[in-house]
């Protein structure tokens, strides 16, 4: 029997508000533990939440960017459970009336267009962070766990997909597209290493062709795309094995163990929390006006699909190239700025970005928001070619050098003496030497073997360490050989 894997993702995204969702504390990452806290986010007796309007606006913007319908009436609910990182012993979240529903994300996977439906998006608060002595970083003598509440109350949106994904790699493609759209919507810093984006992964399997879903398991708080893919693949394989051996899948929460590469059962459905959701009486229900929604929509930044179409239309790029450029906000921004500085040939700019730039960055496995060359440096390099200061070939050397050192192309050209030799008298001298040193190719050429010319040009370039202007060398050689 063959099996089909069914995947649904619940993605938690931290919004990039300056202050927390229900108080004025800073959301800055990396502060000394418990320095960005107040009675509200510490859940002290008597403290009350007040909704940060910016969080509501960011959440709405994200939901619109993901093609959702925004509710006219929404509310906050309490999700009750005990855990040391949850200071009120309930999380303020949204239960039956989420902020947004019925969205979708379109992306290309395996060369084919795919659409994953978004069931709902809701707004909630993050919890604090536990630090365990066995994880290191704490005094080694004590077997203690400490809590840092700096993260407590950072606004989150939870984006719940329908079970529309069928493989780990497809899940990765979905996540990448989701991340791109959210980056364009400018609602989150999206720093994976700071936990800005975490996923709960629901996996089930069913016989290929079946229309009913199998029993699913859930992996909580998976914090990298790679782990999502590996977790899905492991979990699907595990489930198939259980079923193939005649067993059955238990509905349970499992934990992905990154170092061991396995999932481990945490708690069964029977042991699952009853969160006892009920409307939070401390927060008035949200009456979300159409004016508010349309205002957010009107200020929505350009999204990746629109930008891709614009690159094709305005810069004459191929659709696939525009797709790659716009798949990453930093890359698109880089391209667009460089193209602005070098308006005469945006396609050339695109070729450099898609060619040398990506090649070097991939080789270095650099994060895309750390492009080690400025758009101006790329434009300057192209202008150096245009002015005849360097050849196209030397330009690649200069470009690599700029990427490596950050130095401006003019500086590199000057320091390394890479200025193209276009001075005919200087080149005539070199050509005379090459002709004298290579009688056989010269004779070949003169006897009609045109290809010998290439060899001689190469010798001239070699003698000038590539700096000779190839056009002029050609011209002078022809003249000298005739």
């Amino acid at each position, binding site marked *: 029997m063959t099996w089909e894997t069914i995947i649904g993702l619940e993605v938690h995204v931290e919004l990039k508000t300056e202050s927390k969702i229900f108080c004025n504390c800073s959301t800055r990452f990396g502060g000394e533990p418990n320095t960005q806290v107040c009675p509200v986010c510490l859940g002290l007796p008597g403290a009350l939440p007040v909704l940060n309007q910016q969080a509501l606006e960011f959440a709405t913007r994200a939901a619109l960017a993901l093609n959702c319908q925004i509710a006219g009436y929404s509310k906050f609910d309490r999700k009750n459970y005990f855990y040391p990182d949850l200071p009120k012993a309930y999380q303020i979240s949204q239960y039956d009336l989420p902020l947004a529903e019925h969205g979708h994300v379109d992306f290309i996977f395996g060369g084919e267009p795919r659409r994953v439906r978004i069931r709902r998006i809701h707004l909630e608060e993050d919890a604090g962070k536990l630090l365990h002595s066995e994880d290191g970083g704490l005094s080694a003598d004590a077997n203690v766990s400490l*809590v840092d509440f700096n993260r407590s109350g950072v606004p989150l949106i939870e984006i719940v997909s329908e079970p529309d994904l069928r493989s780990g790699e497809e899940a990765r493609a979905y996540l990448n597209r989701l991340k791109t759209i959210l980056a364009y919507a400018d609602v989150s810093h999206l720093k994976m290493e700071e936990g800005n984006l975490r996923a709960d992964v629901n996996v089930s399997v069913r016989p290929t062709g079946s229309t009913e879903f199998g029993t699913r398991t859930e992996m909580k708080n998976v914090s990298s795309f790679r782990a999502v893919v590996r977790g899905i693949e492991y979990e699907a394989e595990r489930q198939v094995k259980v079923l193939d051996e005649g067993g059955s899948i238990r509905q349970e929460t499992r934990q992905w163990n990154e170092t061991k590469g396995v999932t481990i059962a945490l708690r069964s459905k029977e042991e699952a929390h009853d969160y006892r959701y009920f409307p939070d009486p401390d927060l008035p229900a949200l009456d979300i006006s159409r004016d508010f929604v349309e205002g957010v929509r009107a200020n929505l930044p350009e999204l990746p699909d629109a930008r891709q179409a614009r690159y094709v239309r305005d810069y004459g790029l191929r659709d696939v190239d525009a797709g790659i450029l716009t798949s990453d906000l930093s890359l698109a921004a880089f391209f667009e700025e460089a193209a602005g500085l070098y308006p005469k040939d945006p396609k050339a700019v695109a070729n450099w970005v898609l060619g040398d730039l990506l090649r070097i960055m991939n080789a270095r496995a650099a994060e895309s928001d750390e492009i080690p060359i400025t758009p101006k440096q790329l434009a300057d390099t192209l202008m150096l070619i245009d002015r005849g200061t360097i050849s196209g070939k030397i330009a690649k050397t200069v470009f690599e050098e700029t990427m490596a050192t950050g130095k401006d192309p003019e500086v590199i050209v000057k320091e390394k003496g890479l200025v193209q030799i276009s001075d005919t008298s200087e080149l005539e001298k070199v050509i005379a030497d090459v002709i004298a040193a290579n009688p056989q190719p010269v004779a070949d050429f003169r006897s009609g073997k045109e290809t010998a010319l290439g060899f001689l040009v190469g010798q001239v370039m070699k003698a000038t360490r590539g700096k000779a202007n190839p056009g002029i060398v050609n011209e002078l050689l022809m003249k000298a050989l005739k």
Partner: protein
Amino acid sequence: MALYYKSAKELAGMLSRREVSAVELTRAALDRAEQVEEKVKSFVTRTPDLALAQAEAVDRRRATGETLSSLAGIPVAIKDNMNTFGVRTTCSSKILANYIPPYDATVVDRLNAAGTVTVGKTNLDEFAMGSSTENSGFFTTRNPWDTSRVPGGSSGGSAAAVAVGEAVISLGSDTGGSIRQPAALCGVTGLKPTYGRVSRYGLVAFASSLDQIGPFGRTAEDVALALSAIAGHDRLDSTSAPVPVPDFTAGLNRGVKGLKIGIPREYLAAGISPAVREAVLRAVEVLVGLGAEAEEVSMPHTEYALSAYYVIAPAEASSNLARYDGVRYGVRAGEYSDLVDMFSRTREEGFGPEVKRRIMLGTYALSSGYYDAYYLKAQKVRTLVNKDFEEAFRRFDVLVTPTAPSVAFGIGQKTDPLAMYLEDVCTIPVNLAGLPGMSLPCGFAAPEPAAGVAGGGPTAGDGNGLRLPIGLQIIGKAFDEETVLRVGHAFQQATDYHKQRPALDAKGGARQ
């Protein structure tokens, strides 16, 4: 009359005319507490040093010629479920016995700004759950009229403190009657404002959709003064209403001529002692004599209010009290084997039986599979109770009812939790509807026989033996505390029940 028994209004005049200094007045209140506290036990924490420092500051400011608020220099007591910066705030619970808040509740902030003098934090039923202070995790406050009886609750300490002269004004909180019922039992005036009128920021939550802070005083006028100081929108409380705050003392003297008073018949039905019923009806006659028009009205959903309340309030409480887990503050169990054990033992040791009972009730009501049958249904009942009031207020300006079914009962007398819950049968519907309600003294009666139901008990004010205060409840339209206060003030201008003082020091009472 002793300084400590005068009204805030009178004292404000004396202070501004410099007939008395804030320090002198404060010393009078502190000395009074020294004298009676052992018998009454109003306070969990007394703050004499803070009080004198605040009083000195007021006197200094007055000496510079600064115009001060009319409450400047007035001794106030604060229920110990409102946060006071640097002063222990326990909610009369062992679990918070050592808790010192790092911030002031908004009401405390506002009183401080008005220049009041904080004399202490008053006792309550643990986390405001109860009607007698017997559920305090520390001790039971005594009724100054008879120290073998309860002062009512949960704000029993705040009511007793004002009744016995340890404070001129005090703050209480009222979730189902916790200001009005102790006001009735202690013979003082107490107002639960409209939900949203006073900020809840810094009030330790019991049931967030019902909790409201309000003042106790010796007169409706004092209550109006205090309400003017603490009312108003607070950006820290999303449920506080952005409505203008009038000067609540301004319209007090407008009288009740032509005012329409409704008398909901369900509030005078079985369970209300004859003496109370009589006193209430006589109070209505007084108001009619002053020119008001009174008529009976039916509020058919009243009988369901108590049941709905005992689903909604515990449900919210089960969530509000979940934070007391021993992780961050408060008292943690001494020994435990792991995290879950630490949670359970801390809560097992820290909470008293009534708090545990309500946490269990509420947890059950919110549980998966029971939510619709309990919580949701209770919310529907709440809507129906609201509609009863909406109907009634189309015809009437205020409604008048008993505050409590009977006079103060003996300590230890009500052992059945359900019997205790019935203490709030007249006050709970008002919280469900979020309306303002005030209790003020409207008569006196002899104690009921311990068995409860009385057949032709002694009539009010018969003067024989022990006399205990009876409370009249005046219920108003949302955000119409002005009319409620006006009716109360008119009644007090025509009667002297509020001028009676308890017989704590001398046998037979200290009739003025």
